[in-house]
């Protein structure tokens, strides 16, 4: 994804590399975020593939149990913190200033600092493979699961330094996340061009504003809990030490106060992409702009009060169970509203089935299914049966792959022309879409079934004759199809960079400000800061006889 700017191709490689490393330009930092996220997406994907290879057959011993534990820990941690977060931050970094008519983020140097802190976090985590043996020779990579429940992570049960790499890596990347979130909020509040009132901001900007506000509040609980864990591990504190009266449950609360809103931190930017792409390819303005914003704000607030639905199986009081069942069911309402917003936008529109639009339509459909299994798991008695089973894994992968990754793919097809100045190949794109759709459904539709049949998550292997073999084999075969699909995507990204059709400023006949500048946008984006009067400034410009501001 490192796309050099037009006109600098003649310069020596190291000079261009130097430009990227010292840059404070929001577009370059955005692309570095995305590139770094994609790199870790591939690494995390390899870890997933190793797990699926191990689980494809009963009584398999392809990798050791220790390696398997490291794989699921690193897969979860990598995908959430070092793939999904950087990609959504990168997209926000690239697009938010362009969409609000700003020349850069509010704090460009903080922006660069935040990126390099996040990058350092990933390096620290992965250095554990080399340096994680520690004093006791215990373990290399962390093997405590991505939510690292204490006291399993206490010094007594996790000797050596593998857990420390997990703690420090995430702590450092958390500093970067807070810096970027602070930057996005300030940019949206203070850097908008004249006329870009809050009620005229593109939905992508609105949703990223709410996401960034959430990040500000929710990363810190994880940081706090990790500081406590470090104090326990190295200064002999007793936060999670049950022998000194400490609690074995409080880490779970602290973690999931971070962990559940984090899901919304990742999925709201995906909703943001859907809310920009679907209107353009339906040739209609978004249906229910105000409701969309209000629903997102509602999601932001409610998401702070649902965390313990991850903890039904540990045994809470009936009052706590009832509260978290109700709040979790409540959050389905604003999420459902959004689905109707997108359907209402498509309804009666002149749909154009480009690759970007296909990914969006699939994401909306999959959001519905993921939401429905979410409501099933929100019912505590149901969760007691299926909590910590493959049903849960299937549910949240439906959200993360089925919605977030699909939206990110849509974003690459939609904004690639703006970033590189060239169109992506639609034929390769269609192959990518259909193969990935098939691979996704083969893997994750069938993954629900072993869960219902009682297969717990994180088991290393299983006996034959439990009735799980065929389902696990199907699930693993789906992974192969997904890998082939991703290869189509990568080939398309590279091929189109050299051979793609020239895009021009506005290949999709879109309406937001990023399409008013050249492709790729020049340094500082806009020669003259634009002035806007409606939610679709480019429509106004292209249709002076029938501008939007007459009706808003």
């Amino acid at each position, binding site marked *: 994804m490192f796309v050099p700017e037009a006109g600098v191709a003649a310069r020596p490689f190291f000079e261009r590399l130097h430009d990227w490393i010292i840059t404070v330009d929001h577009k370059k930092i955005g692309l570095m975020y995305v590139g770094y996220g994609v790199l870790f997406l591939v690494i995390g994907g390899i870890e997933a593939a190793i797990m699926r290879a191990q689980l494809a057959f009963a009584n398999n011993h392809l990798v050791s149990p220790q390696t398997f534990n490291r794989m699921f820990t690193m897969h979860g941690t990598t995908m959430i913190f070092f793939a999904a977060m950087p990609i959504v931050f990168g997209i926000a970094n690239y697009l938010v200033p362009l969409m609000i*008519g700003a020349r850069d983020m*509010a*704090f460009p140097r*903080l922006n660069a600092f935040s990126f390099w802190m996040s990058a350092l976090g990933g390096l620290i985590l992965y250095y554990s493979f080399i340096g994680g043996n520690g004093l006791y020779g215990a373990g290399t990579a962390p093997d405590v699961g991505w939510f690292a429940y204490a006291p399993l992570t206490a010094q007594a049960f996790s000797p050596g330094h593998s857990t420390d790499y997990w703690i420090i890596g995430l702590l450092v990347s958390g500093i970067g996340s*807070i810096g970027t*979130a*602070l*930057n996005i*909020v*300030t940019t949206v*509040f*203070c*850097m*908008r061009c*004249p*006329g*870009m*009132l*809050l009620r005229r901001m593109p939905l992508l900007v609105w949703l990223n504003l709410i996401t960034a506000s959430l990040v*500000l*509040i*929710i*990363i*810190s*609980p994880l*940081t*706090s*809990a990790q*500081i*406590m864990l470090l*104090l326990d591990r190295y*200064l*002999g*504190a*007793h*936060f999670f030490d049950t022998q*000194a*009266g*400490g*609690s074995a449950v*409080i880490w779970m609360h*602290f973690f999931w*106060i971070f962990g559940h809103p984090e899901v919304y931190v990742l999925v709201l930017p995906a909703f943001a992409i859907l809310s920009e792409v679907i209107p353009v390819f339906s040739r209609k303005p978004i249906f229910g702009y105000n409701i969309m914003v209000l629903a997102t704000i509602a999601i932001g607030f409610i998401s702070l009060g649902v965390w313990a639905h991850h903890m039904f199986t540990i045994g809470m009081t009936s009052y706590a169970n009832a509260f978290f069942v109700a709040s979790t069911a409540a959050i389905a309402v604003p999420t459902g509203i959004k689905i109707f917003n997108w359907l209402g936008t498509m309804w009666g529109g002149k749909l154009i089935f480009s690759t970007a639009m296909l990914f969006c339509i699939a994401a909306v459909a999959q959001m519905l299914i993921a939401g429905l299994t979410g409501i099933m798991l929100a019912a505590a008695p149901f969760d007691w049966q299926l909590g910590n089973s493959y049903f849960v894994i299937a549910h949240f992968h439906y959200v993360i792959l089925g919605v977030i990754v699909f939206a990110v793919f849509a974003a690459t097809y939609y904004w690639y022309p703006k970033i590189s100045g060239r169109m992506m190949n639609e034929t390769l794109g269609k192959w990518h879409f259909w193969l990935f759709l098939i691979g996704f459904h083969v893997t994750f539709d069938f993954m629900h079934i072993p869960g219902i049949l009682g297969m717990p998550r994180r088991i290393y292997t299983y006996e034959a004759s439990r009735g799980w073999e065929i389902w696990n084999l199907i699930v693993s075969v789906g992974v192969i199809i997904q890998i082939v699909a991703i290869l189509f995507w990568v080939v398309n990204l590279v091929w189109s960079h050299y051979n793609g059709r020239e895009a021009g400023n506005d290949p999709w006949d879109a309406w937001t*400000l990023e399409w*008013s*500048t050249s492709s790729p946008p020049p340094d500082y984006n*806009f*020669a*003259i*800061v*634009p*002035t*806007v*009067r409606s939610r679709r*400034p*480019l429509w*106004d*410009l292209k249709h002076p006889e029938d501008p939007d501001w007459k009706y808003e």
Partner: protein
Amino acid sequence: MAASSIALKQPEMPLAHELKGRVGMFCLIAAESSIFLIFVVAYLFYAGKSLNGPYPNEVLHVPVFNSICLFASSFTIVMAERALKRNAVKVFGIWWLFTIVLGAIFLVGTAWEWYGLIYRDHLTITTNLFGTTFYSLVGLHASHVIIGLTGLTTIMILTALGYVSQEHENRIGVFALYWHFVDAVWVIVLSVVYFIAR
């Protein structure tokens, strides 16, 4: 860009660029508050659950003088800002120095309190849950005081070297917000540790 050719009677300007420092600082304060919130929750959750002594009511004394000093430093920093607003740089420097001294007294007071707790009362972070939560919460706040004092001292040195003038009023105001936050958090920590969970 052609987009600017849209005729406008009155350009509607959103928030001004000058406010970005303040908005950014408020964001940082939100994130920091969230860190403190979790430590306060841990403190309250573990209050009275220590398996062995010393217990808070045996060893803790309300740090009256310390707290007065820290709260007073919020007042002196406001006076410093006002002085800078009317370009009285020397007066600004004096009030600023007062702020540093008051903050330093607070820090020394905390160190003295800890010294007594550790050597007289034999309470360390490993002794019991009270020690664990007390030292981490109060220490978290003290570390913020240290960060604040570092910033205050940097600005003091720049003032002494003659680099600070009225034009820096906005930036210094942004930094002062952080110091006010450090003081405000002490209200919470003081009431939780020395009054509520005793």
